[in-house]
């Protein structure tokens, strides 16, 4: 089966600019996650979707980050305006239903804010 697709692979922007990341999960996976992985740290959950509804966005900095999953399939994560500390890899993952099946991760987008 095809994996979780993410684009772009790399992005460099200046601080205060906007950026958007795209994720296409595995077909049939109802649950989609966005993670932020800062260099040297483990991934941190930003937001979890179940179909097109938000299940958990408690760690999403809502003043600058937003995410949507229209039609319960693809998802986009946006940062506006970006800060230097947003430099990280943004990982998308999907699972059939519950976390306990284990996720399938995409290859991530490496964001550098200069």
């Amino acid at each position, binding site marked *: 089966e095809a*994996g979780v697709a993410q684009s772009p692979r790399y992005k460099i922007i200046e601080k205060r600019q906007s950026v958007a990341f795209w994720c296409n999960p595995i077909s049939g996976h109802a649950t989609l996650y966005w993670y932020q992985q800062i260099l*040297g*740290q*483990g*991934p*941190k*959950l930003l937001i979890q979707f179940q179909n097109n509804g938000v299940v*958990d966005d408690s760690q999403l900095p809502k003043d600058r980050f937003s995410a949507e999953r229209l039609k319960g399939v693809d998802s986009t994560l946006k940062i506006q305006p970006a800060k230097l500390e947003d430099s990280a*890899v943004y*990982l998308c*993952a999907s699972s059939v239903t519950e*976390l*306990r099946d*284990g*996720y*399938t*991760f*995409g*290859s*991530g987008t*490496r964001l550098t804010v200069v």
Partner: protein
Amino acid sequence: AQTVTQSQPEMSVQEAETVTLSCTYDTSESDYYLFWYKQPPSRQMILVIRQEAYKQQNATENRFSVNFQKAAKSFSLKISDSQLGDAAMYFCAYDGNQFYFGTGTSLTVIP
């Protein structure tokens, strides 16, 4: 609050030898799952092995096995017959009411 601790930022192992990566966690929950993920330089996160907390038997997947000590809240990963392709970051993860990753252990395999 649940936390996951990996106390070994870096580990190395000789090819064909065995290495054990440590992970401890803190929780007040009785029902949860534990995972080990591998992240090679490609950044793809790959599920290595998972363990249900209610199962006493340690999970095994080919050369990978875990030592799950529920009372001690310890969940170590043993890699037997290490191969060059095992070189990667390894993350321990906890799944209860929320999902937490550890900070990772970078494994180097020496030819």
